[in-house]
């Protein structure tokens, strides 16, 4: 079904190979989905949201990578690389260290805590319900308006450039296919398909990289010619209105440096090292999409190995996306590096600049016909894997954190259905978001997204870090820290959006006291301000006793003592409500075959298991929260992590 909407019917030669590739990919995906449908028990919460806690390390690692890398990376990294040089690769290479932080520090705590969602962890850690609600809502907001819109925008840019098709048709088809296998399969299906899509993405991107380097004259050829890649049209058509200064169209002198001047650089090096680490801390260590994949692993060693695999894969985007973006500028400077607004509008439909078309341009002009179809498959793979992960995780958040509050008596079956319905709701919102994406196709959407994340995520990262490491932090401290951080972030975000970010030719009118601070510096400042708030308020209010904190903080992660759950009352209330509902309700047997078929397809068990007793719950949670590791494998994994860090350090220093 997918290939018919996507293989270009106009280019006759492209059709057969494109079709073959798509048939192969779609049938593999179909097989995997079917197999996971039969294998994992998708009818339970653990089965649907956490893949039954049975995944081994390589689907975990591949899924982490595929969930992270979306079409936004292909378009955004290449575009920024074309415009500003290699520093944007620092976003990717910073993640190598953050992903180790995730596997060694955060996931053990989440596992022993026995939680499924991040708001649930905060609830157990702090008690009270307002933090959980706040985090769920702001996470859903950030997903829908940053991750989904970026990936859809980039996918749309690519499809427009490559095929010239109507955005609505293509995006609706994409979203429907993604929603279909998210709704039916659950996390297990997603993680297996992510593995296939990772392979497709990497293979395709490697092929394009090979072609690009061949065209530009090899690795040295790129670095010899990039500095001279300027467009030919550099005169302002209306000199009385504006003049075009040379710096707007010549490549930056520090384009080959990963670490740039702290004052004049577009990505200053303290920002690149620490600012991206702060935002990365939110994205990798406290965000539902990523953490959920780690929680689905068999045991802690598999988590760590998966994190290492993801780290190694994160080395690739610099070579697969940033360098080809720069090559695109060298090969097509008049289009990619256009500076006159009218000319840019002609080329890519937006006045600000056309660097976003760097990657699609390479695909369209450089690749032979058959391989063009394959690259399209690559982009679709990236887009679908990211979107599917976001759909699944937001459905988890909504079901476990918001729906259970509205209806505590909801049992597994109802939760499953609600989770699936929510995915459909999100798809509808995403489709409705397309006009906004089109209107904002000013080439600045990627910058807006980075800024939004830098203004809203640091308080969350700060609270999570403190929650895990500092026992003294309590509920009022965390809540008011989050609110304070949010207000400060909004105080920067709203003026900046209303004034607009401007461009090189027409700088923004935003006063420099607000907008002068680089967004990465702002992220660092906000992180520390929030931390100070949280600590001050925590020390002024009564502390949480240690009996509530066993296995919820890093220092107590191995503690075997019984924990007095702060949310024990609410859990008991929910279980009672569910038991009553089970006793009062009649057991309906799915009589009609159509109903049974529907139930099986959606993975909903028609026979509801009886509510477990307290002993069964205790035994089950003990098994799930076990973080012991086999010593031999533990040492192997630790050694591997050290090797990976060494490689990362070498590459950072090499390109610095």
């Amino acid at each position, binding site marked *: 079904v997918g290939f018919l909407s996507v293989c270009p019917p106009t280019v006759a030669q492209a059709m057969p190979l494109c079709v073959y590739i798509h048939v192969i990919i779609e049938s593999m995906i179909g097989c995997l989905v079917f197999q996971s449908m039969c294998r994992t028990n998708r009818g339970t919460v653990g089965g649907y949201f956490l893949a039954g806690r049975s995944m081994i390390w390589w689907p975990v690692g591949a899924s982490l990578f595929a969930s992270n890398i979306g079409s936004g990376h292909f378009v955004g990294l290449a575009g920024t690389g074309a415009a500003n040089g290699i520093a944007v690769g620092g976003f990717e290479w910073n993640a190598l260290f953050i992903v180790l932080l995730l596997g060694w520090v955060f996931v053990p705590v989440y596992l022993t805590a026995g939680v499924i969602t991040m708001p649930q962890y905060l609830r157990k850690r702090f008690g009270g319900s307002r933090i959980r609600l706040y985090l769920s809502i702001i996470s859903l907001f950030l997903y829908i308006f940053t991750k989904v819109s970026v990936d859809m925008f980039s996918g749309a840019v690519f499809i427009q450039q490559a095929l010239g098709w109507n955005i609505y048709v293509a995006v609706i088809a994409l979203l429907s296919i993604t929603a279909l296998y998210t709704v039916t399969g659950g996390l297990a299906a997603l993680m297996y398909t992510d593995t296939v899509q990772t392979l497709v993405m990497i293979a395709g991107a490697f092929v394009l990289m090979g072609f690009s380097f061949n065209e530009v004259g090899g690795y040295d050829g790129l670095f010899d010619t990039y500095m001279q890649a300027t467009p030919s049209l550099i005169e302002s058509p209306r000199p009385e209105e504006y003049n075009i200064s040379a710096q707007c169209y010549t490549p930056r002198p520090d384009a080959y440096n990963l670490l740039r001047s702290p004052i004049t650089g577009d990505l200053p090096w303290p920002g690149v090292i620490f600012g991206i680490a702060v935002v990365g801390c939110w994205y990798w260590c406290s965000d539902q999409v990523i953490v959920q994949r780690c929680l689905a692993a068999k045991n802690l060693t598999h988590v760590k190995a998966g994190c290492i695999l993801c780290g190694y894969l994160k080395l690739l985007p610099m070579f697969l996306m940033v360098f080809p973006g720069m090559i695109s500028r060298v090969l097509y400077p008049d289009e990619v590096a256009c500076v006159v607004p009218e000319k840019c509008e002609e080329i890519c439909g937006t006045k600000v600049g056309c660097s976003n078309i760097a990657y699609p341009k390479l695909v369209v002009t450089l690749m032979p016909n058959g391989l063009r179809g394959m690259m399209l498959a690559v982009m679709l793979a990236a887009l679908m894997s990211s979107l599917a992960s976001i759909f699944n995780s937001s459905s988890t958040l909504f079901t476990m954190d918001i729906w259970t509050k509205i209806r505590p008596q909801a049992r597994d079956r109802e939760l499953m259905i609600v989770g699936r319905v929510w995915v459909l709701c999100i798809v509808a919102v995403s489709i409705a978001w397309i006009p906004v994406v089109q209107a904002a196709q000013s080439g600045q959407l990627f910058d807006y997204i980075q800024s939004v994340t830098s203004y809203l995520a640091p308080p969350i990262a700060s609270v999570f870090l403190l929650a895990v490491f500092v026992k003294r932090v309590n509920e009022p401290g965390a809540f008011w820290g989050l609110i304070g951080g949010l207000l400060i972030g909004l105080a920067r975000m709203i003026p900046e959006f209303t004034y607009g970010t401007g461009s090189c030719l027409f700088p923004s009118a935003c006063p420099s006291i607000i907008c002068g601070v680089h967004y990465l510096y702002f992220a660092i400042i906000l992180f520390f301000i929030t931390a100070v708030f949280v600590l001050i308020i925590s020390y002024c209010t009564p502390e949480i006793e240690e009996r509530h904190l066993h296995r919820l903080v890093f220092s107590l992660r191995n503690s075997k003592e019984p924990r007095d759950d702060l949310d024990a009352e609410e859990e008991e209330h929910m279980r009672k409500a569910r038991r009553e509902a089970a006793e009062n309700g009649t057991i309906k047997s799915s009589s009609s075959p159509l109903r049974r078929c529907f139930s099986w397809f959606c993975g909903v068990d028609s026979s509801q298991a009886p509510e477990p007793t307290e002993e069964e719950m205790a035994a089950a949670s003990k098994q799930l929260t076990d973080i012991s590791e086999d010593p031999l494998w533990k040492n192997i994994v630790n050694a591997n992590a050290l090797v990976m860090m060494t490689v990362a*350090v070498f590459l950072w220093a090499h390109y610095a």
Partner: protein
Amino acid sequence: MKKTVATLLLLLAFFVRTAVAQTDKVSAQRAIPPWLTGIIAVVVFLFLVFIVFIVNKMWCEGTSVEEPAESNQGKPPDGAIQNGTSLEVVLHDMRDEGYDNICLEDDAKVTMTAM
């Protein structure tokens, strides 16, 4: 605690290295070829990891030397409580185990988490 120390050390390594890189750039463009900068950074990094490992080992050895003395003192009180709840004795044992585990675990961990 040890992990935060290790993290801080790694960040310090970065800081030092970038400062070095910056001054290199300012003084002479091609004085040190990039691959050599990379190797120097790797050597510095591994050296720091080694130091953290040594410090951690000495620290752990320090506390584990005191451990047997503590647990010896702890034994008679346990025997005294014996006629009371056996649960408390079990908890005491598990707590001791817990301490050992933390030390050994951190020990092995620090070899790679100098981050």
